[in-house]
C-alpha cells in the first residue's frame, strides 16, 4: 500500500546522514520506510545525540539510554523513530506448563491433542492448503547480560510428533531471520529457553493447518526486534503471509519507569498492524497469561500490547472439559493471578468502531476510561486442561497459555481462507457485525481477576471460543 511507503528523497537523506557520520548503510527500503545502519557505538551515539550507559537492575543488565533520540536539522520532520540503542528485554512468551507432570493420556484425560481440539471446536474439514502463516519467534541476546535465550524447533522432534503422534505430514517451515541467531532450539533446561513456546506454536497451528506454508520470523526481544519483524512480515513480497500468529507481548502501560514500550515503538508496531489489516492479513495475538493485572505492581488492571491494538484479533483463554469429542464445560481460564487469561480495557486505544455495539464496559481503573476491549475471541489455554505437544526434551506433554489460543485461531483462519477461496483479511469488523451472536461459543462462567465473564462479549473471553463450522456457514451466508 503506497500510502505507507517512503519518499526516495527521505531515504536518501538518512543514508547521506549515516555515511557522513561513519555509519554504514546495510539496507534501505522505501516499502518498509526504513534504513538499517551499522557502525561503532561511539559514532552512532554522537550522530543521534544519545548517551549510552550499561545499566544493571534486578532482572539483568542492559545497554540503555535516558531521554530522547535526536536528529539534526537536515532530517527535521523526516525521521519518525530510531531503534537499536536501547536493548532492554521486551516481550515475554505466553505459554504455561501444567502444574501436574504429564504421565499418560489415560491418567490425564483432560489433555488434548490439537487435532482433538479442532474436532471439539467443530473446525470445518480442511488442511490449510494454499495458505501462508507467519509465526513469530523471539530469542537471542537478553540485554547486555551475556545471557542468551535459545529457542527454535528441531525438524527431528517435529517429524516425530506429526508422524508418530498425530499421524499426519509435518508442515513446511521456512525461516526468516530479522534479528538474532535464528533457529536455535534448546533442550528446555534453561529458564530463558523459548523452545517450548516455538514448539507449541508450530504443533498447534501445524496440526490444524498441516498443508499451510509456515514462515518462521525470528527476531530479538527488543523494541527494534518487534518493529522490524512486524514491518518485514507485512511488507514481504515473497511468501507473504495471510495470517500472523504472535504468542508474545508486554503490558501496554504501567507506572513510570516500568513501561517497556516507548511511544515511538507503540506507534510503529501499531502502524505495521494497520498495514497488515489493510493488506488483508489477519494477526492473531495472545492476550496474556497473568489475569487482569498482567502482574504490573501498581494495583491497577492492565492489558497487553500488541493484543490491545485495535488492528489485531486478541485471543483470550479458557478451561475446557471435554470427552469423546464433546465439550462438557468451558469456563474462563483462571488458576490464580499468575495463571489466568489476560483481558480488560485498553488505556491507550479508544473503543474501535467495530466494538461500539459489543457492550464493552468502562475500565475498572480510576477514571473509568472507555477503551478498546480485550480480547476479541478465546479458546483452550488452561495448562491443566492443556494441549499435548512436543516438548524440547522429545516427550509429548501438556502445555497451555494464550500462546496456545493464538496459533489455534491462526490455523482455523487458514482453513476458513482455504474453504472460502479468498483470504478473510482483518476479521474483527465482520466478527462483531456478523458473528457476534449465535455463531461462536459464548463462555459466560468465571473471571480473570477484575473482570467477570457473562453473556455476550466480556473482558475474559471476548465473543467466545470457536465453532468453526458455524463460522464458515455464517461467512458463506454473507456472500450469497
Amino acid at each position, binding site marked *: 500500500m503506497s500510502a505507507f511507503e517512503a519518499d526516495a528523497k527521505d531515504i536518501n537523506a538518512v543514508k547521506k546522514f549515516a555515511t557522513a557520520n561513519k555509519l554504514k548503510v546495510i539496507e534501505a527500503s522505501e516499502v518498509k520506510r526504513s534504513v538499517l545502519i551499522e557502525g561503532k557505538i561511539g559514532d552512532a551515539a554522537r550522530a543521534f545525540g544519545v548517551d549510552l550507559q*550499561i545499566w544493571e537492575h534486578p532482572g539483568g543488565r542492559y545497554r540503555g539510554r535516558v531521554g530522547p533520540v535526536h536528529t539534526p536539522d537536515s532530517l527535521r520532520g523526516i525521521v519518525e523513530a530510531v531503534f537499536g540503542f536501547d536493548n532492554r528485554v521486551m516481550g515475554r512468551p505466553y505459554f504455561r506448563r501444567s502444574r501436574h507432570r504429564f504421565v499418560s493420556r489415560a491418567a490425564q484425560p483432560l489433555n488434548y491433542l490439537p487435532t482433538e481440539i479442532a474436532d471439539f471446536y467443530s473446525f470445518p474439514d480442511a488442511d490449510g492448503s494454499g495458505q501462508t502463516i507467519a509465526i513469530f519467534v523471539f530469542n537471542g541476546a537478553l540485554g547486555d547480560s551475556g545471557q542468551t535465550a535459545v529457542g527454535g524447533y528441531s525438524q527431528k522432534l517435529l517429524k516425530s510428533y506429526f508422524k508418530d503422534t498425530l499421524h499426519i505430514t509435518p508442515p513446511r517451515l521456512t525461516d526468516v531471520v530479522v534479528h538474532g541467531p535464528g533457529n536455535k532450539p534448546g533442550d528446555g533446561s534453561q529458564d530463558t529457553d523459548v523452545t517450548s513456546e516455538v514448539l507449541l506454536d508450530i504443533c498447534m497451528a501445524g496440526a490444524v493447518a498441516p498443508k499451510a506454508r509456515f514462515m518462521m520470523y525470528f527476531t530479538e526481544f527488543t523494541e527494534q526486534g518487534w518493529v522490524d519483524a512486524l514491518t518485514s512480515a507485512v511488507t514481504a513480497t515473497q511468501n507473504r503471509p495471510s495470517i500472523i500468529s504472535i504468542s508474545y507481548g508486554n503490558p501496554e502501560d504501567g507506572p513510570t519507569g516500568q513501561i517497556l514500550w516507548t511511544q515511538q515503538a507503540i506507534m510503529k508496531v501499531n502502524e505495521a498492524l494497520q498495514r497488515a489489516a489493510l493488506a488483508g492479513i489477519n494477526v492473531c495475538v495472545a492476550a496474556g497469561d497473568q489475569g487482569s493485572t498482567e502482574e504490573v505492581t501498581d494495583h491497577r488492571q492492565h492489558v497487553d500490547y500488541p493484543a490491545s491494538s485495535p488492528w489485531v484479533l486478541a485471543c483470550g483463554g479458557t478451561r475446557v472439559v471435554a470427552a469423546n469429542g464433546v465439550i462438557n464445560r468451558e469456563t474462563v481460564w483462571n488458576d490464580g493471578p499468575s495463571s489466568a487469561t489476560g483481558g480488560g480495557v485498553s488505556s491507550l486505544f479508544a473503543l474501535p468502531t467495530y466494538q461500539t455495539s459489543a457492550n464493552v464496559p468502562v475500565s475498572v481503573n480510576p477514571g473509568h476510561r472507555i477503551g478498546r476491549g480485550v480480547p476479541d475471541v478465546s479458546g483452550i489455554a488452561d495448562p491443566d486442561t492443556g494441549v499435548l505437544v512436543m516438548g524440547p526434551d522429545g516427550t509429548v506433554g501438556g502445555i497451555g497459555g494464550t500462546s496456545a489460543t493464538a496459533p489455534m485461531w491462526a490455523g482455523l483462519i487458514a482453513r476458513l481462507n482455504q474453504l472460502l477461496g479468498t483470504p478473510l483479511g482483518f476479521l474483527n469488523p465482520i466478527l462483531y457485525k456478523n458473528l457476534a451472536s449465535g455463531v461462536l461459543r459464548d463462555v459466560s462462567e468465571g473471571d480473570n481477576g477484575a473482570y467477570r465473564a457473562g453473556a455476550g462479549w466480556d473482558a475474559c473471553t471476548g465473543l467466545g471460543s470457536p465453532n468453526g463450522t458455524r463460522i464458515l456457514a455464517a461467512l458463506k451466508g454473507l456472500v450469497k
Partner: protein
Amino acid sequence: MARKPSLQFATTSQENSQENSQEDSHQNLRRVAGSERLPLPNARVIGPADPEQPIRLTVYVRSRPAHTHVPSLKEIGHSPYEWMHSHNAPTH
C-alpha cells in the same frame, strides 16, 4: 519515559508524521518525538557503553507527503473479505 503515551486509535501514519521532531537544547539537534526512555526500576549505571563496540540501528522515516489516503477502520467499516465480495474484486 517521561510521559505516559496518549496514543489514540484513529492515528494514521500521516498524522504521526505531522509533528515528529521538537526543538531541543542538545547541540542544535532535535528530539524525535516519542523516543523518550527512562531507566528500569531499581536500575543503576555501572559504566558507559563501549564506544568501539558495533551497533545496528533502524531508522524509520515519514510516509510520502499525504496525497495518498489511508482509510481508517471507521471508513472501511467491514473487512477486506467483505469488501472484495461486495465489489466483485478479483481474489488471490
